[in-house]
């Protein structure tokens, strides 16, 4: 029996891969697209209009750094005119005077601002951009002054996991409604930098306790979303809420993808907006059909009572670690290679020189060895 096709609710639009920061865990693919591959304004507006027709209620405007698109105000206005909820995901650096106000005026509903650290030195080091912390603080103040609701996003890894209490204070001091403590997901650049980023179990446990206590203490004051670390998990996350189930993303060149890292699955073929209409791509693009629903599942997923809870977990993690995109996500305790997750976290702690040698996100920064997968003999 094939799964019923539901209309998508959410869309992540990666407007550009350009970015002033070089975070070593960026979820963009290792092969970054240059500006001349980006869709033009009218094509994005057409795409957004088709997305609204298709049932999309929320669009997350991301990148790279989306504010580098000079037409961002126009894109927000286009979405707003269709009643779509807009969320701007920004690093908050180099946003020209008056633009945040212009985003708000164009109808922006919400702004999400990343902090690489709670301390200026950490932020500047992880993003490889001196002075970035101060600029982010300023962006947060400007966003609040423009009346925009604010989420602080804190991607967490070995080098800032002890700053979690400070992240909570920072978000409160900036009058954020929401804080995302997001343990780094090891795909894209984070996979290439895994040995340099992976925290240890003791730090992960301390963090979980701190977040749980803060959530209780801050009920009604600030929401804390906690993206738990896969490598220490018992069950996998329902990645994207299930493959091609209610969300999708679009790369800067219009390639329509089921998730950030889908292009790491070599068997999949992707389609670009413009070659086909969005509704057709959503309905029957081979990459979307490949893992939609539960028919594609193997054991232990196929007969698992959680198969429609976590939808098999992350296909890209299965690809990266099990070497089979249709395998159970190794984050799941029922995966036959679940133990490999703990081995990989141990190996990361033992890896030499892990603290000083990030592969920073920039064009041409990776070598084939760094972009490895883990399904070789061990």
């Amino acid at each position: 029996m094939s799964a019923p096709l539901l209309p998508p609710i959410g869309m992540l639009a990666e407007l550009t891969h350009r970015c002033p920061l070089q975070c070593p865990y960026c979820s963009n693919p290792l092969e970054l697209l240059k500006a001349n591959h980006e869709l033009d304004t009218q094509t994005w507006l057409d795409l957004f209009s088709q997305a609204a027709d298709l049932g999309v209620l929320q669009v997350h405007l991301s990148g790279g750094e989306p504010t580098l698109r000079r037409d961002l105000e126009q894109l927000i206005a286009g979405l707003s005119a269709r009643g779509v909820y807009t969320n701007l995901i920004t690093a908050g650096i180099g946003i020209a005077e008056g633009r945040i106000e212009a985003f708000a005026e164009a109808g922006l509903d919400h702004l999400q601002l990343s902090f690489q650290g709670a301390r200026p030195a950490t932020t500047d080091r992880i993003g490889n951009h001196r002075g970035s912390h101060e600029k982010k603080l300023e962006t947060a103040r400007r966003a609040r002054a423009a009346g925009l609701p604010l989420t602080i996003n804190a991607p967490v890894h070995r080098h800032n996991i002890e700053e979690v209490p400070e992240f909570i204070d920072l978000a409160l001091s900036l009058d954020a409604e929401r804080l995302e403590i997001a343990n780094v997901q090891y795909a894209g650049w984070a996979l290439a930098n895994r040995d340099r980023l992976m925290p240890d179990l003791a730090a992960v446990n301390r963090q979980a306790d701190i977040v749980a206590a803060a959530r209780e203490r801050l009920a009604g004051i600030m929401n804390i979303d906690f993206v738990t670390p896969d490598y220490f998990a018992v069950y996998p996350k329902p990645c994207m809420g299930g493959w091609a189930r209610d969300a999708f993303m679009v790369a800067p060149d219009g390639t329509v993808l089921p998730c950030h890292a889908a292009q790491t699955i070599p068997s999949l073929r992707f389609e670009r907006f413009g070659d086909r209409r969005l509704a057709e791509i959503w309905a029957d693009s081979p990459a979307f059909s490949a893992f939609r629903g539960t028919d594609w599942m193997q054991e232990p997923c196929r007969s698992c009572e959680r198969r429609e809870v976590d939808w098999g977990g992350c296909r890209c993690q299965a690809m990266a670690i099990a070497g089979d995109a249709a395998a159970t996500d190794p984050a799941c305790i029922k995966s036959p290679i679940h133990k490999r997750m703990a081995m990989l976290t141990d190996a990361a702690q033992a890896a030499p020189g892990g603290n000083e040698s990030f592969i920073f996100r920039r064009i041409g920064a990776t070598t084939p060895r760094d972009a490895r997968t883990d399904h070789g003999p061990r």
Partner: protein
Amino acid sequence: MTALRDRAIVSLQSAPSLPRHVRIQYDPMRQAFALLSPEKVFWPNEISLDILRRCDGRSTVERIIADLAADYDTDPQEVAADVIAFLQEWSDKLLVKL
């Protein structure tokens, strides 16, 4: 700890509203009212919608309870506890402003 606000507690004199980051709108495709918030979309049931739509920043909780009781043709005392509990829960999730 630097909190710029405190947890709000519902009283009969509160005049609840929807915060700036929350919006309710009808979705013609799914033929239902959606509540849109930064990362989540909620599909409130009919009773929840009846409460949320009265959160206009002017009507007090007392008034909302009286209106609902009239609409449902019941005693205000019957609905008061449920309405207050609902608003407190939604306020704690920052989906309603008191």
